[in-house]
C-alpha cells in the first residue's frame, strides 16, 4: 500500500462546478472543511449539489473552478486511485459477474497483489462484515443488506483514509436502514477514518453524523454539529428542511431589551429574542420554535383570544400518531406549516379531532431568532447578519 500520510482532512476551496455553460452551477463557489476522522453528512434535497461534491472529492468529476485538498495536499487533478479515498456507490455497483470474494478483492487485483494475498485479505474483511459464508456467491444471490456489507468491505480493502458514501442506505428497507446506519457509525469509529455520507434523509444525517452540512442549490445553508443543526438552525430554509422546529414570523411592533414583539400575518403577537441585534419596527423577522415545546388545547367557542402572547389559534389539519408523541398539524391561515408534537399521554387525555379549533401556546425561551430578515416595503433597510 502507498505510503501516503494517513490524514483524511478534506478541504473544499471555492469550488464551482458547472455542467452546461450558461446553466446555473451544480455547486456554487463552495467552501467546506471536514476534519480528519469525523463523520460528515451532506444533506439536501435532490439536485442540491451534494452528490456532485462527493464525486469531486472522489475524483469522478473535476471542479470547473476551485481546489480540493485531502490531508493538506491538492488532489484536484489526481485520478481517484491516487487520492486515498474509496467510494461506496448508490445501489452499491457490485460487479454482477464476479463472486463476492472477487468483488471485495478487486482493488487489490488492480494493484497487482497476488491472488493468494488478495483473497486472504478479502476473506478477512468478509469475516468482519459476517459474510465469509457467502464468498463464492454472486451479488444477485444476496439480500440488499448483504450487498451493502459487501460494498462496504470492497471499499475498505485499500485502507482508505476517506470513505465516500453516496446514499448508502437508500436501497434498504426501513428496518435494515436503521440497523445499518448504526453499523456505519460503529465502523467509522473503529477505523477512525473520515466518512462523508450523502443523504436526503434528515433523521439519518442527524443520527450518524458529527457534522451535518445542509445544502440547497449548490450552496451550503449551514454546516454544524448534528445537535446544533437540529436545535439551532440558522435560517428558515434549514429549519423547514430539518423539520424539528416550526418557522414563525412577524413584523416587529416594538423592542424592549433583548426581546422584540412582532405581529404575525394572522394578527397574533409573538416574542422573539433579538439579543443585541438592531431591528427596526415594521421589519419582518423570523424565529424557530421547537415542536415538542408547544402546548395545544381546545379553543372555546367565540373569537380567538387576541390579547394572548406567544399563542396561535387555528384548525387541526392532520393528526399523526408517532407512538411516543402525536404530531398535530395546525392550519393557522398563513400558509406556514405549524406542527406541535404533543406527548402521547397528554394528547390521549383529551384527544382532538381533525377540523377542531385549537390554541397552541409556547414559552418565549423556546424561540430562537433566525437570520432571515425582510424589510417592509417602506421600512428601513437593515443589512442581513
Amino acid at each position, binding site marked *: 500500500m502507498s505510503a501516503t500520510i494517513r490524514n483524511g482532512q478534506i478541504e473544499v476551496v471555492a469550488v464551482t462546478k458547472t455542467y452546461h455553460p450558461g446553466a446555473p452551477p451544480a455547486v456554487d463557489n463552495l467552501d467546506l472543511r471536514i476534519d480528519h476522522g469525523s463523520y460528515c453528512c451532506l444533506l439536501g434535497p435532490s439536485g442540491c449539489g451534494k452528490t456532485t461534491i462527493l464525486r469531486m472529492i472522489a475524483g469522478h468529476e473535476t471542479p470547473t473552478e476551485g481546489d480540493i485538498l485531502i490531508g493538506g495536499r491538492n488532489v484536484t487533478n489526481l485520478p481517484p486511485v491516487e487520492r486515498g*479515498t474509496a467510494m461506496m456507490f448508490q445501489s452499491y455497483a457490485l460487479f454482477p459477474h464476479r463472486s463476492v470474494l472477487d468483488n471485495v478483492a*478487486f482493488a487489490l487485483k488492480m494493484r497487482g497483489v497476488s491472488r493468494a494475498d488478495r483473497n486472504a485479505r478479502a476473506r478477512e474483511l468478509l469475516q468482519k462484515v459476517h459474510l465469509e459464508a457467502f464468498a463464492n456467491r454472486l451479488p444477485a444471490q444476496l439480500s440488499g443488506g448483504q450487498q451493502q456489507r459487501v460494498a462496504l468491505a470492497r471499499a475498505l480493502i485499500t485502507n482508505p483514509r476517506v470513505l465516500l458514501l453516496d446514499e448508502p442506505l437508500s436501497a434498504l428497507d426501513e428496518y435494515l436502514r436503521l440497523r445499518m446506519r448504526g453499523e456505519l457509525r460503529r465502523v467509522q469509529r473503529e477505523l477512525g477514518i473520515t466518512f462523508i455520507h450523502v443523504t436526503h434523509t434528515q433523521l439519518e444525517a442527524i443520527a450518524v453524523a458529527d457534522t451535518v452540512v445542509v445544502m440547497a442549490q449548490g450552496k451550503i445553508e449551514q454546516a454544524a454539529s448534528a445537535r446544533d443543526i437540529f436545535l439551532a438552525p440558522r435560517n428558515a430554509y434549514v429549519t423547514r428542511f430539518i423539520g424539528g422546529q416550526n418557522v414563525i414570523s412577524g413584523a416587529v411592533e416594538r423592542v424592549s431589551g433583548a426581546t422584540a414583539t412582532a405581529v404575525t400575518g394572522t394578527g397574533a403577537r409573538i416574542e422573539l429574542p433579538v439579543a443585541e441585534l438592531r431591528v427596526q419596527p415594521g421589519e419582518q423577522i423570523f424565529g424557530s420554535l421547537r415542536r415538542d415545546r408547544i402546548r395545544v388545547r381546545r379553543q372555546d367557542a367565540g373569537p380567538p383570544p387576541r390579547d394572548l402572547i406567544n399563542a396561535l389559534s387555528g384548525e387541526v389539519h392532520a393528526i399523526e400518531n408517532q407512538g411516543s408523541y402525536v404530531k398535530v398539524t395546525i392550519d393557522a391561515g398563513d400558509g406556514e406549516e405549524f406542527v406541535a408534537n404533543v406527548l402521547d399521554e397528554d394528547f390521549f387525555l383529551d384527544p382532538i379531532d381533525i377540523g377542531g379549533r385549537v390554541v397552541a401556546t409556547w414559552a418565549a425561551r423556546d424561540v430562537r431568532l433566525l437570520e432571515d430578515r425582510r424589510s417592509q416595503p417602506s421600512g428601513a433597510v437593515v443589512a442581513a447578519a
Partner: protein
Amino acid sequence: MKISPVLSSWLQIGPMALILVVFFGLPMLVVVVVSFFDFDHMSIVPAFILDNYDDLFSSDVTLRLYLSSIKFALIVWAITLLIGFTVAYFLVFHVQSLLIKIGLFLLCSVPFWTSNIIRMISWIPFLGRNGIFNQVLIATHVTSKPLEFLLFSDFAVIVAYVHLFTLFMVVPIFNAMARIDTRLIEAAKDAGASRYAVLREIVLPLSKSGIALGTIFVVTQVMGDFFVVKVMSGGQSASVVSALSNQIQELQYPPAAASAVILVIVVMLMVAGILRVVDVRKELAS
C-alpha cells in the same frame, strides 16, 4: 366462455408452432428424406440409399470446401468482432448526447437501405483493376501498377462479408453494453482500474451475451453464403453452399440435400459450441 388452461396454452403457442412446422420443420424433413433418394439425369428416384452421404464423405473436395468456408467465417468473425466491439463501445461510452448516439446508430444502418446484392456489387467498380482505388493509388504514386489482388480474390470476398455483416455484430454488442450500469465502471476506476483494465474486467465480460449473439449471426451467414463468394472471388473460391448450388443447377437434388443436411449439422454444432461458452439465456435474464 371459459377456456381451460391447457387449451389456452396451446392457443398461445399455436401460431408460432404452425409457422415453425410449416416453414421450417416440413422443408427440413423433405430435405432429409430427399438426401436418401437416388437420381439420374432427369429425375429423382424415391429410394433409401446412403450413396449421397458416401460420395460426400469420400470426396476430399468436401473437406476443402468446409475448410475454406470455416476460414472465411473465422477471418470475417475476427474482423467484424473487432469493428463491432469498437463501434459499440464508442457509441455507448464515448458519445454523451443521446441524440448524437441515435443519429450515429442510424448512420450505421444506412447501407441497409439498399439490397445486399447492390451493396456487394458496388465494390466491383471500386476494387477492380481500373477501379477507383487503384486509380487513386497510381495517381498518388503509391504503386506504379494496379494491384491485382483487390478484386476477384479472397480479399474481395472478406471485404464484402465484413461490409455486409458488421452491423449484425454492432447491434447485439451495443445492446449488451448499453445495459451496463456506468456506476460499475466508476466503481472499477475508483478501485484503481486503468482504462484497459475496465475494458478487460468489466466491459468485455458484461458484453459476452452480445458478442455471442453477434458471432452466431455472422458465422451462420458466412457458412450459408454462396453468392458473395461466387461474385467477389470471380469463381476462384468456393464455399460449401456454392458447391451445393452447382449441384442444384445440375438437378442433382439428392446429393445437394445430403450436403445441406451435413451443413445444418455442422452449423448447429458451431452454434451449440458458442452457447456452451456463453449462456445467452442467463446473460439476457440478468
